[in-house]
């Protein structure tokens, strides 16, 4: 009697437990299905350039001439790949020292002022929409560069500068977390030995947190690599490898946004754009793996 009562009582609980488990599992399953379908669809469209239209993938990756509507058409995406890498790496080179300084300020120099003012400022930078960055870039940075440097103002330098502000929050946040997580003993030991703050920072803090800092930088590059609208507005979009930082250039994302709506789905020119998207996606995966690798090292 008592046993069966127990079982009856227990059943709804167990049922609830299972429902909970299954519902949450379904949620995660949905997430997994989503990512796999993104990969599948982008890949199937991107690869059709090679299989259906018989474009040689080596030509696509190394060719210098991009004219999908030309006679005969050329599909050399190297200028875009070059543009994407140069803008995002340059942006990281500008943003990394700034972000590192900001995080040192927040953790080591003046935590109170830093937490109170600098951190909200940096988070706000992360919140500003990319179209607004593009708008400001086109109306402030481009005219400024045009006046100061030879060239038309647009180009990789303008793109990199806009991107560097956009990725500053990513780099700073991760650097700050890494610095704050450093065991106190390490720093105190260094101070006890009579080191100055700067000696402590670049002899102790910097080497031990380097993998984490690199993680932040790679994540920043990944974000810059995928940013589309802000870059497209200031880079000029000529499908060539530029001869200077102030000459019109293109990135993978700017080429896609520029022509996607103008080409008919399924046409050769359209498929070629999907191939660019595929390259973009594969690069994202590479960045994620680099980040994983770095994170693995920072745990040691």
């Amino acid at each position, binding site marked *: 009697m008592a046993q069966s009562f127990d079982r009856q009582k227990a059943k709804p609980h167990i049922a609830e437990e299972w429902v909970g488990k299954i519902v949450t599992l379904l949620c995660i399953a949905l997430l997994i299905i989503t990512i796999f379908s993104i990969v599948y669809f982008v890949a199937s469209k991107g690869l059709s350039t090679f299989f259906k239209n018989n474009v040689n993938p080596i030509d696509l990756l190394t060719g210098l001439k991009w004219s999908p509507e030309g006679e005969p058409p050329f599909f050399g995406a190297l200028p875009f790949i070059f543009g994407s890498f140069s803008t995002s790496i340059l942006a990281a080179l500008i943003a990394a020292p700034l972000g590192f300084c900001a995080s040192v300020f927040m953790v080591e120099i003046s935590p109170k002022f830093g937490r109170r003012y600098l951190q909200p400022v940096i988070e706000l930078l992360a919140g500003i929409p990319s179209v607004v960055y593009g708008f400001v870039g086109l109306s402030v940075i481009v005219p400024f560069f045009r006046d100061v440097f030879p060239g038309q103002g647009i180009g990789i330098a303008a793109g990199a500068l806009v991107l560097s502000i956009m990725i500053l929050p990513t780099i700073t946040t991760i650097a700050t977390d890494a610095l704050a997580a450093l065991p106190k003993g390490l720093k105190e030991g260094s101070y006890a030995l009579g080191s100055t703050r700067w000696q402590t920072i670049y002899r102790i803090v910097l080497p031990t947190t380097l993998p984490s800092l690199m993680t932040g930088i790679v*994540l920043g590059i990944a974000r810059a690599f995928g940013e589309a609208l802000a870059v497209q507005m200031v880079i000029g979009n000529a499908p060539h490898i530029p001869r200077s930082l102030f000459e019109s250039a293109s990135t993978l994302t700017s080429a896609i946004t520029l022509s996607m709506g103008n080409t008919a789905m399924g046409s050769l020119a359209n498929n070629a754009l999907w191939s660019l998207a595929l390259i973009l996606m594969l690069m994202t995966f590479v960045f994620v793996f680099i980040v994983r690798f770095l994170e693995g090292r920072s745990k040691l």
Partner: protein
Amino acid sequence: MKAKTADKIATAVIIAVSGLIVLVLAGLLGYILIRGVGHISFDFLTSPPETIRIGGGIGPQLFNSIFLLVLTMIITIPIGLGAGIYMSEYAPANRITNFIRLIVEVLSSVPSIIVGLFGLLVLVNMFNFGFSLFSGALALTVFNLPLMVRITEQGLKGVPREQKEASLALGLTKWKTITSVMLPISMPVVLTGTILAAGRVFGEAAALLFTAGMSSPRLDFTNWNPLSPFSPLNPFRPAETLAVHIWKINSEGLAPDASQIAAGASAVLVITVLLFNFGARWLGRYMYRKFTAIK
């Protein structure tokens, strides 16, 4: 002595750089607000845009942005919470879980333009949702989900172990423990994160260009039947959001006051994002205080 000089110089440089960052933001905000605020008026916020005449507003766009945000959050929050709960509480510690974690990470770093293209191909063309709010909301869900999962996980990890164990020891099932003990405690973290994620939705444009479209049909604000194509509530109508509108006006605007409208709309967008940020901060602090005061 030399070391001390180096220390002083380094400190000065670091402070200067930090100051520079603050200045850059101040300049950026100042530029946008000074150029735009003058153009903001009640009329500007409520009237529909004009194609070639002066005096267009951003009313429908503002509404679209907010409605799209609501739609996105309605889809994102339950799925994100569920997936986050699974990852933090149910997932066994094995290779598959590690793999799922990797996948979530990958999804979070997929560029928004790829998500937009995927939306164009699958949602707009294959499922035939057309350029619509619904397609836009689903596309935005795709790149907000990983964020939501991470936030939920973080929130649940922050719950003191004693509280969780006490609940389990009282004989509550794991599910019950999660929903009635752990979720409420992690609420401040989850809520703050959610609001920040919402701010991202508000500013997104690249993914929406290809999914929610660049046009806004005439809306009849007296028609609240979600099935009517003129109703603001119909999720299957094309909807240009504020961010997309700024993009379009900057590039295609024919109206003589296009640049003022772009500046005004940018200012509105930035002010909204600021409100989200401060709101999230304030709410987080308020809830933290409330919870800690009770306990």
